[in-house]
């Protein structure tokens, strides 16, 4: 690896500090014994204890996990189907348009996504709750899954399935025994990404959630409006650890899959 000069190191330090210092402060102050958010009063796990005895937060966290799991699963199914349609069916009229529509949620402002899905649920008379949030999250999760799975599908040898069929597997068997396992790293990476996206979301969730379906980020957001409490630092730290772990896992899986292709 190239050795870094002192200027590089200084620049890198400032850059990283700019990005991560606020987050680091949150983590540090989550272990603060003091009740004041900005004054250090010694190390303590007090606020984590308070957090875990607060049933409202625990319920919200459970909601978030349920929603993220459901949303990620639906997103993975939809995104994979979309990727298969876009890569396997060849050219058909409207292919470009479908590809564009599938990716739109990636770039659409979340407010618009939230309002439009809310209007859809209201006009269909669907009662808002955990399922509506999961469905809304699945729409943009699917776009990310599609991109990840599509890039893997494109690099996959189109003769793999043909070889499986030639060796005696029926079309469904060939897909399940050869294509799905070859896509597995991409499927898992896509699922994990959709999971964290759902876990992170405030805007869309605050539009489409209903009574009893408040997610953790929404709960945190409304609590912060009443002032930042040390509890919030603790909960942020936990979220941070969970999300980073999942994202790192997802990128490792993707890297592993790509490396296998390159050999």
């Amino acid at each position, binding site marked *: 690896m190239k050795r870094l000069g002192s200027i590089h190191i200084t620049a890198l330090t400032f850059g990283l500090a700019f990005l991560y210092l606020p987050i680091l402060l949150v983590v540090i102050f989550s272990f603060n014994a003091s009740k004041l958010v900005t004054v250090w009063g010694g190390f303590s796990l007090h606020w984590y204890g308070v957090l875990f005895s607060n049933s409202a937060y625990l319920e919200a966290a459970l909601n978030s996990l349920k929603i993220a799991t459901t949303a990620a699963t639906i997103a993975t199914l939809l995104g994979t189907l979309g990727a298969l349609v876009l890569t396997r069916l060849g050219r058909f009229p409207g292919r470009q348009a479908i590809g564009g529509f599938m990716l739109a949620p990636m770039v659409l402002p979340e407010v618009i996504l939230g309002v439009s899905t809310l209007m859809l649920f209201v006009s269909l008379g669907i009662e808002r709750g955990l399922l509506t949030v999961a469905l809304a999250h699945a729409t943009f999760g699917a776009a990310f899954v599609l991109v990840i799975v599509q890039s893997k599908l494109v690099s996959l040898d189109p*003769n*793999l399935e043909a*070889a499986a*069929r*030639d*060796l005696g*597997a*029926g079309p469904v068997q060939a897909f399940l025994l050869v294509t799905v396992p070859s896509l597995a790293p991409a499927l898992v990476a896509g699922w994990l990404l959709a999971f964290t996206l759902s876990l992170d979301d405030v805007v869309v969730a605050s539009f489409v959630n209903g009574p009893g379906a408040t997610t953790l980020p929404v709960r945190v957001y409304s609590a912060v409006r009443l002032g930042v409490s040390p509890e919030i630092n603790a909960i942020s730290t936990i979220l941070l650890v969970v999300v980073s772990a999942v994202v790192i896992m997802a990128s490792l899986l993707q890297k592993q899959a790509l490396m296998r292709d390159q*050999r």
Partner: protein
Amino acid sequence: MPLLNIQGVSKYYGDETAVDNLDLEVEEGESLVLLGPSGCGKSTLLRMIAGLEMPDEGKILLDNQDITRLPPHKRPINMMFQSYALFPHLSVRDNIAFGLRREGMASAEIARRVDEAMAMLEIGNYGNRKPHQLSGGQQQRVALARALVKRPRLLLLDEPLGALDKRLRQQTQAELRKLNRQTGIAFVFVTHDNDEAMALADRIAVMQAGRLRQVDHPRRIYDRPVDRFVATLMADANLFESIVVEEAEDMVHARCGELELQFRADGIPRPADSYQLLGLRLEQIEVSRDPLPKGPNTASGTVIDIDYIGDMTTIEVRLSDNQIVKASQLNALHEPLIELDETVWLTWEADALVPLADA
């Protein structure tokens, strides 16, 4: 009765005709090579035999049974893909066992057959590796073992040696011939490499633009090509666009510029003044420094180019009417090399001139 019988098969992609009303038979145990330039339809034909593509017209019979509409997994035919198409998530053993498992064979029998196939292809030590941990040559063997282990009636090989380097390719050619004889399974190869076709084939089927130009033994394809395409595909040849002068006894006399050509009549009527393309292989010409009497099937001219390639020397000779004739000869130690601008005399047998169709 032939093993495989292809009758009037056509395949269209939109406006393009990939395979055009093609008939072909494959005999039990033979090694047949489909030879042609890329895009001639040979791979499409192979995929139709495997069942991966459906013909738009015509029939394919295996052992006299119509298999035209039979899906690939129900045909006793296996294919080795150009990309090998090894399953990346399975070990070498599991790749080879894949086809047998689909037959619902007992696991002890599967293990025995897989061991046997791995021993035959000398890949017994790699059973637990994944495909990406193997070299190109090893992957090729695994792909071959995976197809052969099913003991198909017919093995299809799509450019099987394309990804190997030259030395490994020659070695593998010999092994493929051996496997073909050992197993008694009929092999159908697809290749665009004429040397490879010669090395592998009992019979070569030359394809161009979706049609078969000639199907014959390699020697006949080389020595007796039927048309311009086949003649130049196999090796360099002199082509004389000549005019028939007369047919006398069993010889036909023709003229091409100052050249007087004489070739053996083959029963096809050739009236005087009709056009006839004649082919002449470079090595069939005898080069001499001593003057020869003028007459049919001789020429003399000036050497304008010399191409020395170890065992052979190819020279280009310009005749006085500016026609250029190419000739090659084996390099013998005691003969001094021919030099540029030297005048040489050329002569050849009447049988060396091959009348060619010129479409």
